């Protein structure tokens, strides 16, 4: 009796969540995939359209812009927040005073939602309201910082806000990694006469490879699913110059009644995520096994 229970209990406990994951994730992925092949407009319908929606998507200038934006935003955001996070972690790791307080300050932005971050940065970056106006009021009248309202630069304001929000979190991850490094290795290297920069560059950072891995995975999914940040900060504007795929998908599927096109863009986003993440995960995990 007890043995049977012991054998089945884990399966019974896991089954609801397996069921939920199957239906709510894979089931709906399949459903979205199916909708993307139909003429669904306002509500889902089942008129077969083949690859029509994908063709429309590829011809859509706004979609192309949003994909390029995602590339710019994603790459810059991931690289900058990891570099900044690592630097902050290394500096904090020098046994400084009040480390706890400083660490908390850097980590706090992560506690905010992207909506709050977006709104606050919208005010800061607005030329007539924030930074630029403040500089002008202080007498530096030639100061100009109008990225938020510029067609070419608006996407970079997303990078600024997202880096501000997430680099503290990356810092915390690296700090944890640094604390986990055996200090005897560092001491041994010091005895061998290695300088601190060399030690960091050649010994400590390579040891932190798993942390890099987690940081890239976490920040890249933040980048791809970015919706609230762009909604609050620029709403995709000016024009649609700072549009991102998630916003494109929402607009078309829910407000413009082009569910088929929205579903197609969602599938493209999924394909993009898989194309980048799967090879990376695969190579990282295989390396670790060896």
């Amino acid at each position, binding site marked *: 009796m007890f043995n049977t229970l012991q054998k089945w209990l884990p399966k019974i406990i896991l089954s609801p969540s397996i069921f939920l994951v199957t239906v709510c994730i894979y089931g709906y992925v399949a459903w979205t995939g199916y909708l993307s092949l139909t003429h669904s407009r306002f509500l889902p319908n089942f008129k077969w359209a083949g690859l029509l929606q994908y063709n429309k998507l590829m011809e859509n200038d706004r979609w192309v812009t949003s994909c390029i934006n995602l590339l710019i935003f994603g790459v810059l955001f991931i690289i900058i927040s990891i570099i900044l996070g690592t630097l902050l972690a290394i500096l904090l790791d020098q046994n400084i005073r009040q480390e706890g307080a400083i660490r908390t300050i850097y980590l706090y932005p992560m506690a905010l939602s992207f909506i709050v971050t977006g709104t606050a940065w919208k005010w800061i970056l607005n030329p007539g309201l924030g930074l630029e106006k403040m500089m002008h009021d202080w007498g530096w009248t030639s100061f100009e910082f109008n990225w938020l309202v510029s*067609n070419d630069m608006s996407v970079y304001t997303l990078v600024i806000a997202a880096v501000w929000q997430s680099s503290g979190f990356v810092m915390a991850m690296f700090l944890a990694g640094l604390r986990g490094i055996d200090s005897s290795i560092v001491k041994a290297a010091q005895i061998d006469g290695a300088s601190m920069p060399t030690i960091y560059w050649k010994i400590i950072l390579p040891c932190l490879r798993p942390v890099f891995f987690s940081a890239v995975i976490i920040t890249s999914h933040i980048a791809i699913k970015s919706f609230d940040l762009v909604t609050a900060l620029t709403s995709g504007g000016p024009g649609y110059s700072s549009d991102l795929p998630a916003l494109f998908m929402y607009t078309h599927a829910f407000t413009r009644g082009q569910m088929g096109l929205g579903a197609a863009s969602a599938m493209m986003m999924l394909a993009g995520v898989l194309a980048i993440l799967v090879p990376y995960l695969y190579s990282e995990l295989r390396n670790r096994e060896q």
Partner: protein
Amino acid sequence: MRKFATLASTLALTSAINLAYAGEVEVLHWWTSGGEAKSVGVLKEMLEAQGHSWKDFAVAGGGGESAMTVLKTRAISGNPPAAAQIKGHDIQEWADLGFLSNLNDVAKAEKWDEVVPAVVTNVMKFNGDYVAVPVNVHRVNWLWANPAVFEKAGAKIPTTMDEFFVSAEKLKAAGIIPLAHGGQAWQDATVFEAIALDILGSEDYNKAFVMHDDAVLSGDKMVEVFTVFKKMRNYIDSDSPGRDWNIATSMVINGQAGMQIMGDWAKGEFIAAGKVPGKDFVCLPAPGTDGQFTFNIDSFAMFELSNADNVTAQKSLAKTILTPEFQEVFNLNKGSIPVRTDMDMSKFDSCALDSMATFKASNTSGDLVPSMAHGLATTGYVQGAIYDVVTNFFNDPDGDPKETVTKLARVVKAAK
């Protein structure tokens, strides 16, 4: 007093009759702010006076996007509200899916066809059957101006496009923002369609935005529309992207900016700030569109219900919305004009009277055209495609009008 007594007794009589089968109406709307909420309150009272109960289903959020999401869920699950605030071409979409109920008997009894212009009723009908009730008519091609600012700059309030640019130049020289504008896609489209109406004329406007005639969409006149549109960009301050329309209106109110091209809902902002029409602010047709009328109609679509009592209540709701009493109270609060052309307009202000006169005149002259920017002229798909082209062109300093019209024709064709 006698009039009141008659009214009271009629109400008492109708409620006595209706009490026998009083139903409940659930009404989905997004009129949750100030004057709008008050207007809905009036409708509720009038319906309750007839013995029906009102279940308010307000989903906040200006453009009604969230309300539509909720509505879709409710409709698919087979439990739609009695009435929902749906307008323009979306009515056709819903009716096409078979969700809406036929109101022909109410329309016939109340003689809607006689008191409401055909342009309006056409929007409310699906295959010739009434499925929705119009609430009000907004005129979109208005120019709101602050005369004090114009006086200070020594400029004349413009009535044509040429005058617009002369005055704008003077305002700019005087250190005033000539045109208050919010850089959101629908506001860009609102300004764009006002220019298009002037340059293309009513007939070609319809060809372009209602019939999607390729020759007009990619024609020389359209190139001119985009050229003027881009020129207007020079008279808007650089901080405009993302600004809400009412913030832009407040810039005109406090004299920071000279004028704004916006529908007549902007009047509510002026009135709320204690300004008097004709004195503190003036309303004029958008430059060059005198006698033309771009309409935007709010309406309630009625959903197919199963409970017979609720159907009765729903029909009463439809009837009540178009009664002169409700039309008057509602539109006084909302800033729009009644859809009935046989109303006593004595309580309305000069802007509304002007609007009503143009509405009637343009109805016969063919200058009454549906608003593209507000979803009356075309489907949401084509509207979205035009929005994208227009807003992208407006914000791109290197945007070329010639290339843009080709693109416009292409995307409209693709979205059709």
